[in-house]
């Protein structure tokens, strides 16, 4: 009799407790879903290319989106990483192959080539002159605007070590961090828009 009463008591408590636990678990799942779901006000970008035209497009979209109130994150990898090197000599302490990469991929924002019609630099110079004449912002000024509008830059650590690029060789940028693919994937999964340039 006593045993029966205890087991009945247990049953009642369990009946009360189980739905409550269930609700809490569901709520936690929903909260997680909510925080993981893409934010339509966030833009993630992979900047893979290092040519002037593609970098201009990337930075115009980034600064434009930031001016529309979006949170913007640019992930630089491969030729994109090499493109945001400063002009100037390489740092010391590099291996022979790393040094060769440095020679093959000179830094300097004003040295970026065009993907088409570069014509050994003649096309690029024409394009730059036209941009100046028509009041289109150049790459350094777009990067300055990106800084002002809090565009975040993430640089792929792997592409840096592969090409022997050192942090101090990159352009000066306030919000620049060094990371791997997981950081990009996390930011991209939370952004409503993701672009690959």
């Amino acid at each position, binding site marked *: 009799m006593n045993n029966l009463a205890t087991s009945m008591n247990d049953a009642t408590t369990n009946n009360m407790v189980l739905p409550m636990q269930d609700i809490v678990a569901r709520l936690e799942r929903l909260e997680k879903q909510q925080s993981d779901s893409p934010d339509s006000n966030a833009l993630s970008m992979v900047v893979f290319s290092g040519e002037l035209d593609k970098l201009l497009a990337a930075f115009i979209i980034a600064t434009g989106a930031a001016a529309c109130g979006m949170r913007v994150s640019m992930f630089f990898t491969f030729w994109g990483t090499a493109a945001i090197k400063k002009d100037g000599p390489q740092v010391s302490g590099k291996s022979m192959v790393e040094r060769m990469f440095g020679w093959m991929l000179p830094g300097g924002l004003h040295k970026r080539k065009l993907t088409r019609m570069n014509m050994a630099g003649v096309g690029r110079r024409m394009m730059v002159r036209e941009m100046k004449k028509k009041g*289109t912002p150049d790459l350094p000024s777009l990067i300055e605007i990106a800084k002002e509008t809090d565009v975040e830059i993430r640089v792929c650590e792997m592409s840096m070590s592969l090409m022997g690029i050192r942090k101090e060789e990159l352009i000066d940028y306030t919000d620049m961090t060094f990371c791997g693919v997981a950081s990009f994937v996390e930011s991209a999964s939370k952004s409503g828009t993701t672009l690959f340039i």
Partner: protein
Amino acid sequence: MAEDTMYDLIGLKCPMPIVKLNKIMKTLAVNDECTVTVDDPAFTPDVKAWCNKTGHTLLSCVVKADTIVVKIRKQA
């Protein structure tokens, strides 16, 4: 008292008019109005898109020859 300030953005090309407009908006108080003059032809569709995205109110958009005069009210 809500204010109406004039801004001249003549000569600026994409994305600068939107970038400057965003900067101007930050200096205004809610319900303040501003009038900007732009000559970038992309600004007519772009200012509508910008207002949709940011939530500010586009009061008027008048195209006169090569210039576009836009009036915007700041929202919270």
